[in-house]
């Protein structure tokens, strides 16, 4: 049995009066890729953003239930900054900061107080190498990151996350803004990152979920309908609604 990284217990989430998540119970295992699928508006992003407390930014959000990370409830008395260095996030739209490629990677570690130039140099190189971007950008580290292509920008954002050496990487439709070649690169990247990190990815592409994930959770109207091994979900789901969704027969 793999070690459990995240364990949520009857998690409810409200935006004002609107309930976006209903009694979510899910155990996410270490060093696996877990995919969240489901129709638009069913709460996938909302749930993902719970896991690094990104919803703190939205005033109207109210939560009930527990999210146990390792052995602590992250909505309890924990250090949010520390949580976010351990649980990194890659966004749907590539969002490199308007600064140089080097500074983009060094930003997080610098914010944590790392000043040693040599250590930063190594870290930048390592992170970019892991994100399969080093060869493409090693000669232009001091150029602005906004000059990169969309796919390169997204890999830069992954590198930026890796530089924090997190335990978990959350990805919200990381390839939805990219072409098939860039997408393939990022998918390869995810399989190679799996041995070091726990990855949770939201995707609208069944093929993508099928290719890269070990387990898949199907969300519908704020609930998890089914959560199981990916092959099982795609070949022999227990719930009629899951089957309807993955076969495209969904309303």
């Amino acid at each position: 049995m793999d070690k459990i990284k995240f364990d949520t217990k009857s998690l409810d989430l409200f935006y004002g009066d609107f309930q976006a998540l209903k009694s979510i119970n899910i155990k996410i295992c270490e060093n696996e890729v877990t995919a969240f699928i489901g129709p638009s508006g069913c709460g996938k992003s909302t749930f993902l953003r719970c896991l690094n407390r990104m919803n703190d930014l939205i005033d109207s959000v109210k939560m009930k239930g527990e999210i146990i990370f390792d052995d602590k409830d992250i909505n309890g008395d924990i250090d949010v900054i520390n949580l976010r260095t351990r649980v990194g996030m890659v966004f749907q739209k590539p969002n490199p900061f308007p600064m140089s490629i080097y500074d983009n990677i060094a930003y997080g570690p610098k914010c944590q107080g790392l000043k040693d130039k040599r250590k930063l140099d190594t870290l930048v190189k390592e992170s970019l190498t892991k994100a399969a971007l080093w060869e493409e950008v090693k000669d232009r580290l001091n150029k602005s990151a906004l000059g990169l292509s969309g796919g390169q920008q997204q890999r830069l954002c992954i590198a930026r996350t890796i530089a924090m050496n997190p335990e978990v990487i959350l990805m919200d439709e990381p390839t939805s803004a990219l072409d098939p070649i860039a997408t393939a690169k990022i998918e390869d990247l995810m399989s190679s990152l799996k041995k070091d990190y726990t990855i949770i990815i939201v995707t609208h592409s069944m093929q993508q979920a099928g290719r890269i994930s070990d387990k898949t959770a199907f969300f519908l109207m704020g609930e998890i309908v089914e959560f199981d091994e990916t092959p099982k979900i795609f070949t022999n789901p227990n719930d009629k609604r899951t089957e309807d969704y993955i076969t495209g027969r969904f309303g």
Partner: protein
Amino acid sequence: MKSEHKNAIVADKIATVILYCIAGFFLLLLAGFTAYIIVKGIMAYQPGIFSFERTGIGVELFNTVYLVLISLIISVPIGVGAGIYMAEYAKAGKVTNYLRICIETLSSLPSIVIGLFGYLVFIYMTGSKYNLFAGALAVSILSLPLLTTVTEDAIRAVPSIYKEGSLAVGATHWQTIVQICLPVAMPRIITGIILAAGRGFGEAAALLYTAGMSSNVNPNIWNPFDPMSLLCPFRPGDTLALHIWALKTESMTPNADQIADFSAAVLLVLIFAFSLGSRILGARLDRKMSGK
């Protein structure tokens, strides 16, 4: 159907022509004014007009730049700080609404009122003579609302994906503001600073009873603590705008009109140079960030 389509095209053409006419009219008006002031200024030129003697405007020119600089040093940190507070920390509620009303009221106060307030507080209550520093404080009060609003808008306009990206790598709120939001908002904040400085360059009413209407300096004293020194901010000093007004209304000097005309042209060039300089700086910052 066909004729409706034609009508739309005609309406579009008419609107375009009208908008061009309005823009052209203002452009002409502005060009006219500028040309008038510059030409009159050049014709009024006489040797030695930049001198620091009584007949020259060297002291006034220096006072203008000095006063605007001091006022920016005071108002930019406070205004930008207040703007950051309003955009990032102020929670929606009574206190914030009250603050907003205060800022709006302050921004619509006539500058003579600020001038008299400045006289009361900075001159009368402190028991000092008219001085440049008091003038700079008065101008700061004038430009604070503008700086605050511009900064608040600029920070609010920073795309939230930058902010989220920064917080997601474990940066604190303050680190995010200083290292991400402020640089991105900088070009717009610079525009605000240009506008604020413009108020300072052109201000007269707020300075009448704060900085005073005359200067008495000895350009050879360099010790900034000597009240006769040009560099001393705690001495009376009239700026170009005020000087022009004084020359045109009550001066006894025979060629007062010429000096005033020339001063006006110099003031115009000064403001133009300042705006241009700041804009170039802003554009350079912008280019550096967008990687072109």
